[in-house]
């Protein structure tokens, strides 16, 4: 178990832009952190540098304060679960789990006992004689997890571990991985592009984009107080409504709508409204429903309004408004997010009630 720190970490590939362009991150001992971002944002590259597979171009990685940049992968005592699970097809499940112990000074009987213990923990103890090709995706995933944990790693790295599983299994594995992590108390970093995975499993979420950390914090912070336009648009499903507009002193103009501001501001801005923060109610902006999509316990509507095309959610299984209905659409002033268009940063601008 270790406290992990990244200081201004960079990775540049020959003749390409930096895959990781200066990442600073501190992960407490025993914490479960999710690194969330779209594909190509540098999250897997960061993970590979932590594992010791890629050498950072510059910057520093420390485990418990000690610099490990020049320590080889095999010396770092890091467990890793790959997206493809990367089980060794030529070995049985037991041999797969015992593989990391081969390189340690451990008696075979002792190693086997440890492998069986960890197999019981991840619930694959009945599969030990099989080959990886005879296992289902979920079972392979568990074996990969057991193999990563058997050497009692300082750090557990999970690279999109759930993305090859079907929806039901993903749900079970999410809770399973969380349970195992709590039981062992191992510092864990999960890399994913799925925000649900990140927010449900991790204590803290780090959002990455273009090789940089956009924001880090608890899931609800990222949702309610996104620092940047990117975080606002990446987190939340269905995605946030974004409207280009301009602030001119005390008035915000978006398309045909004019909104009074509590604090004066000026310049081009982007207004963000979460679909779930919009409500149909007296005194709202008129909007004409163009589509209604039932999603189970709520309905997602698309409507034309003074802001432009807008999406909003309403609780209830059955649509209450139909195509062509005119509804007044309002929102709580504090739920509106205002961003500077040029920098993408959130502005501390309040909308007047």
């Amino acid at each position: 178990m270790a406290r992990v720190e990244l200081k201004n970490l960079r990775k540049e590939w020959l003749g390409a832009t930096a895959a990781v362009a200066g990442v600073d991150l501190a992960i407490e001992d025993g914490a479960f952190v999710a690194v969330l971002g779209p594909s190509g944002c540098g999250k897997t590259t960061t993970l590979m540098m932590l594992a010791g597979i890629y050498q950072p171009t510059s910057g520093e990685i420390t485990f418990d304060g000690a610099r490990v940049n020049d320590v080889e992968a095999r010396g770092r005592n890091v467990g890793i679960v790959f997206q493809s699970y990367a089980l060794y097809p030529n070995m049985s499940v037991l041999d797969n789990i015992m593989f990391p112990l081969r390189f340690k000074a451990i008696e075979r009987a002792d190693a086997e006992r440890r492998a069986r213990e960890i197999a019981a923990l991840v619930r694959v103890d009945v599969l030990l004689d099989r080959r990886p090709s005879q296992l289902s995706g979920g079972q392979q995933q568990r074996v990969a997890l057991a193999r990563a944990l058997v050497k009692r790693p300082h750090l557990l790295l999970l690279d999109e571990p759930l993305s090859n599983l079907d929806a039901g299994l993903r749900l079970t594995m999410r809770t399973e991985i969380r349970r195992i992590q709590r039981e062992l108390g191992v510092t864990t970093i999960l890399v994913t592009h799925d925000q649900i995975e990140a927010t449900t499993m991790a204590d803290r979420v780090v959002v990455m984009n273009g090789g940089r950390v956009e924001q880090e914090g608890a899931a609800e912070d990222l949702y309610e107080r996104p620092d940047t336009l990117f975080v606002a648009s990446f987190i939340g499903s269905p995605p946030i409504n974004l409207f280009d507009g301009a602030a001119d002193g005390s008035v915000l103009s978006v398309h045909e709508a004019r909104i009074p501001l509590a604090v004066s501001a000026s310049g081009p801005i982007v207004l963000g409204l979460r679909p779930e923060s919009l409500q149909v109610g007296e005194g709202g902006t008129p909007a004409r429903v163009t589509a209604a999509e039932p999603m189970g316990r709520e309905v997602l509507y698309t409507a034309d309004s003074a802001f432009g095309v807008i999406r909003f959610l309403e609780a209830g299984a059955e649509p209450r408004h139909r195509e062509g209905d005119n509804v007044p659409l309002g929102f709580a002033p504090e739920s509106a997010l205002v961003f500077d268009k040029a920098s993408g940063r959130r502005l501390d601008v309040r909308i007047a009630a």
Partner: protein
Amino acid sequence: MATEHSIAVGTPAARPDWQALARRTWRTRFTGQSALLAFLVVVSVPIILPYFWMVVIAFTARTGGVGSDVLWTACAVIVPAVLVYSLVHMSVASSRLRLATGLILLAITGTLLVALVGERLHLNNFRFLWRADFVEELRSKATSGAQFPSVWRAFFNSLALAVSQTVIILTVASLAGYYISRFAFRGRNAFLQGLLVLHAFPAMTLIIPIFLMLYWIGLLDTIIGVMLVLAAIELPFYVFVMKGFFDGVPWDIEMSAMTDGATRRQAFRLVVLPQVRVGLIAVAVFAFIRAWEEYIFVRTFLIENTNWVMSLYLFWVADDVMGVDYGIVAAVAVFYVLPSLLLYVFCQKYLTQMTIGGIKG
């Protein structure tokens, strides 16, 4: 109304005659399959017949001449049996019944063959295996004067050549293939193209320069010289093949092994190599057989009769202006072809996978 009806798009067609359609499908399939089978039989005749004849001659010919009557008698018995069996194999669904027919046919042909040609069979043509001086019997002592080494000498020379080829090619091709597959280095593409050009280059054109080089180095007329030349000429292709197999092994597995505590070399040995097993077996078999059947280079670079390999032995047995004992030539040929045949039979399932070059998880 009538005009409206005629422009309607989806006029329902007449109900199709499903049975007629099914019959037609069955007919097309049957004629197609029969034509394919007939074609395969016809093209395989010129391949199988010479081998069969070789075996027949080896076991029946006596000094003085070769008759084809045994061949035709045997064919007259075996061909109908094979035809009957293939018909049964195609039309009978039960595997037990097919096996039973096969066994019965085998028994019938066996009995017929023994009855018709049994007394013509003999092993006398194989006496070269235990008598090195059989040539003196055939030709006058003056012309052959202890020219022939024991066949086992040639056999072990061939074996040494083929085994060393296999070992050299396996080692170099797997290491080089792995390196090219995994590492980016300056000139990698040029190297790959170079490999292909080398493979496309007709090696025969080099035979005189190589002869001179071997002479200067002092390796002319040694098995080691031929070994090195053959390995150099064959390697580019096998390096390329092995690179293809390594390309099919996912990176993740290797990275995983290294984070699990293995060194790069251990990861290669414990995790990567087992996954290209099929490729290694295929390369080994082809390298072995290629060296086993080699003729031109050994004919050029090996001179002393103690250095003969099997192909040279066969050549010298057959080479006689005074008339050839085809019985012995055929027997030597059978003896020569046996190891490669056995190798093919045992490794056939791996060889067919070589073209796929894939890795199964």
